[in-house]
């Protein structure tokens, strides 16, 4: 069905010549690590992106879609993780959004839409109040409405993107029953999930992608979990990482202790962080890594949280408190959370330390500001004609360095990096790795969240693996392997 699909974005090739078949009426899983290309592939199938090259065939006919609407009309629909429902419209209105049935006089034919919606839901063996606004339905029922919406446009191929991410055990079983019903009706299902148990339970065949390339397609019945994990991670690690010091001068000084962080996204997170240590945090998308650190620094509320710094209890209600305790979060998205794009490099770097740069009258000392900023530009090798350059005009790697400079100058001794090298080139990556290791050698403690396994393995003194908002395992950096980390990240328990 798919032939040589390639998708390039500026700077990266997300998919490289992927070809495979999906049979009619099967449940076909697509698996792979973060960044393997699953989402990109599905976005191409559902018309969100257009492939750079390659073609695909539906029932033997060549098809191409300009937008999701065309894909839907050809019979391919996708159920996204984030539902595309309008919260204050009811179920019927949502199902028929954008293709309302009208009476001859142009007014909405509410009765007919309602009857048809009821019919569809009956087909799905679902039964609930169609008059309620969507916002008042449970997540599982909202998902039902999404599926009903797709089914009511005569869908032949239905793509599920992480459908169980926010469902409870019982709801998952209901979803599986529904998938069986759809399958019996002849609908082809493409099922994307990080949870291998689910895949083994519900899918007929699976296709593995890795780094944008096709690896293999197998009958699910014929492979074990270990084999699947191996196919997902089996790549060589190119060594671009600075050497880990063999002996740790600070090894046993615990700097940060976190106990029982719990909120709507994570539960019962406890760990400690040593002086001069790099603690890697691994986990698949949606495992709650970012949510955990945001709760830690008070960027998001926590229902329960105890934090001890150097053995003393610290109250952290917001990022300001965190900073005053020497903890800072270097956020995931430099463009939306890290930088003020319209401001100069200089003003971005000095933002958190302006108070320290001001005299008693609160006037900013421009000379000191320039000195600090110029030193950062030099130390971090930020490539720019001047410190007055606007942040938005820099390359990704240099933007990331500006964000790092901003935080390093705060003299915090606990730095939390969320995806520090996302979307930057290998040269800049190496420089950032070197910088992180130097900071750690100076006694600064680092928490590094990363979706790139080689990065986690190459940098971390210890690795914390998360799964479904919990700490699944804490591994020693030297003993951790890709297989081990992936085993825990997909919900495995002690081997």
């Amino acid at each position, binding site marked *: 069905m798919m032939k040589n699909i390639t998708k390039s974005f500026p700077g990266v090739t997300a998919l490289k010549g992927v070809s495979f078949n999906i049979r009619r009426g099967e449940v076909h899983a697509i698996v792979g690590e973060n960044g393997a290309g699953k989402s990109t592939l599905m976005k191409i199938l559902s018309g969100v992106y257009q492939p750079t090259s390659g073609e695909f065939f539906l029932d033997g006919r060549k098809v191409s879609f300009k937008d999701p609407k065309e894909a839907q009309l050809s019979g391919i629909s996708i159920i996204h993780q984030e539902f595309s429902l309008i919260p204050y419209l009811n179920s019927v209105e949502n199902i028929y959004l954008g293709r309302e049935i009208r009476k001859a006089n142009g007014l909405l034919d509410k009765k007919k839409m309602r009857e048809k919606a009821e019919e569809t839901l009956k087909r799905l063996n679902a039964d609930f109040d169609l008059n309620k606004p969507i916002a008042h339905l449970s997540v599982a029922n909202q998902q039902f409405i999404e599926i009903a919406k797709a089914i009511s446009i005569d869908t032949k191929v239905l793509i599920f993107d992480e459908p169980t991410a926010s469902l409870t055990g019982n709801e998952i079983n209901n979803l599986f029953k529904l998938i069986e019903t759809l399958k019996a009706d002849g609908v082809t299902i493409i099922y994307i999930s990080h949870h291998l148990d689910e895949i083994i339970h519900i899918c007929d065949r699976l296709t593995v992608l890795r780094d944008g390339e096709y690896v293999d397609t197998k009958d699910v019945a014929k492979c074990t979990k270990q084999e699947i994990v191996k196919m997902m991670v089996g790549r060589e690690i190119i060594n671009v990482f600075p050497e880990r010091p063999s002996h740790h001068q600070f090894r046993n000084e615990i700097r940060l202790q976190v106990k029982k962080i719990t909120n709507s996204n994570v539960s019962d997170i406890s760990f400690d962080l040593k002086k001069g240590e790099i603690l890697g945090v691994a986990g698949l998308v949606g495992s709650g890594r970012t949510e955990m650190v945001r709760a830690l620094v008070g*960027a998001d509320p926590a229902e329960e949280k105890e934090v001890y710094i150097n053995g003393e209890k610290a109250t952290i209600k917001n990022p*300001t408190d965190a900073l005053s305790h020497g903890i800072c979060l270097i956020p995931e998205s430099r463009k*939306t*959370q890290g930088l*003020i794009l319209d401001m100069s490099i200089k003003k971005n770097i000095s933002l*958190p330390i302006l*108070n320290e740069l001001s005299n008693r009258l609160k006037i900013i000392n421009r000379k000191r500001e320039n000195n600090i900023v110029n030193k950062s530009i030099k130390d971090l090798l930020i490539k720019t004609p*001047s410190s007055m350059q606007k942040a938005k005009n820099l390359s990704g790697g240099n933007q990331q360095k500006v964000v790092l400079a*901003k935080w390093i100058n705060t003299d915090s001794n606990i730095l939390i990096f969320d995806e520090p090298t996302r979307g930057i080139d290998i040269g800049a990556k190496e420089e950032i790795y070197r910088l992180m290791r130097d900071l750690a050698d100076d006694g600064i403690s680092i928490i590094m969240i990363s979706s790139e396994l080689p990065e986690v393995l190459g940098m971390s003194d210890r690795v914390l693996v998360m799964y479904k908002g919990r700490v699944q395992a804490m591994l020693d950096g030297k003993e951790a392997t890709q297989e081990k980390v992936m085993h825990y990240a997909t919900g495995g328990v002690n081997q």
Partner: protein
Amino acid sequence: MNGLTMKRNYKEMFKTPEMLTLIGFFVLCIIFSVVSEEFLSLTNVSNIIRQVSINGILAVGMTFVILTGGIDLSVGSVMALTGTIMAGMMINVGLPPFAAVLVGIILGAVIGYINGAFTAYARIPAIIVTLAMMEIARGAALLYTGGYPLSGLPASYSFIGQGYLFGVIPMPAVIMIIVFVVAYIILNHLPLGRYIYAIGGNEEAVRLSGIKVKRIKASVYLISGITAGIAGAIMSSRLSSGQPMAGEGYELDAIAAVVLGGTSIAGGRGHIFGTLLGALLLGVLSNGLNLLGVSPYVQRVLKGAIIIGAIYYSSIRQKD
């Protein structure tokens, strides 16, 4: 910087909204001075400056608010309320002018802070909070005065609005210049100013930088309340009375001055002296049209059209 980028920067500069405003200002001045003999007379020029002062001062506070991405619709009413309270303090309570003005400005600050608190802490959209405050302040001014102007102010008070420094510079202009200079220092040399620009640029990044965003967002409305209070003092002194209906529609003039001055209505970008330029342009425009006998109704239509044009221009520029 090499010659080429310098050249490009010059070109860029001529495309900025404030540069267009500057050119517009001079073009209007030339046209009006040709078609009207009075335009460049000393009386008329000092008239323009006095007219510009009140709007200019209100526009300074408005610049702070708009830079954070907010809006303050209450400034005209707050100006009227503080003006009548000042008059009342002098006439009914017998406070000396200095103390009365101080009371009025503090009142302006308190009202501004209430605006800010509801906007920043209770997260109600600024347009709603300040629209409601516009009504409350106007109602309070009418209530306080019973709907009539409060007159009988001490003669010394008229200095603020009608006096001249060194016999030539109108006092309102002097006060306006002081307000602009103070604003310039805050926006360009104090951490607060940096934070104000930064919040307009990317609020989340500022919050994650450990800066108390809500407090700063509240403070810009407080500043706008203070400038409304200062404008209230000038207004009541100029009219030698506390007028409860003064300043109707002034919020729009202030917003127009800010936008014409090149400040982005979405926040984060702009310059305080651009605002001065915007206020000057509006002042000259209305004065010139009055001299030519153009109907005030036509002027209102024109003013509205200019505001839309300025915002449209800056929004298409932002997309490049």
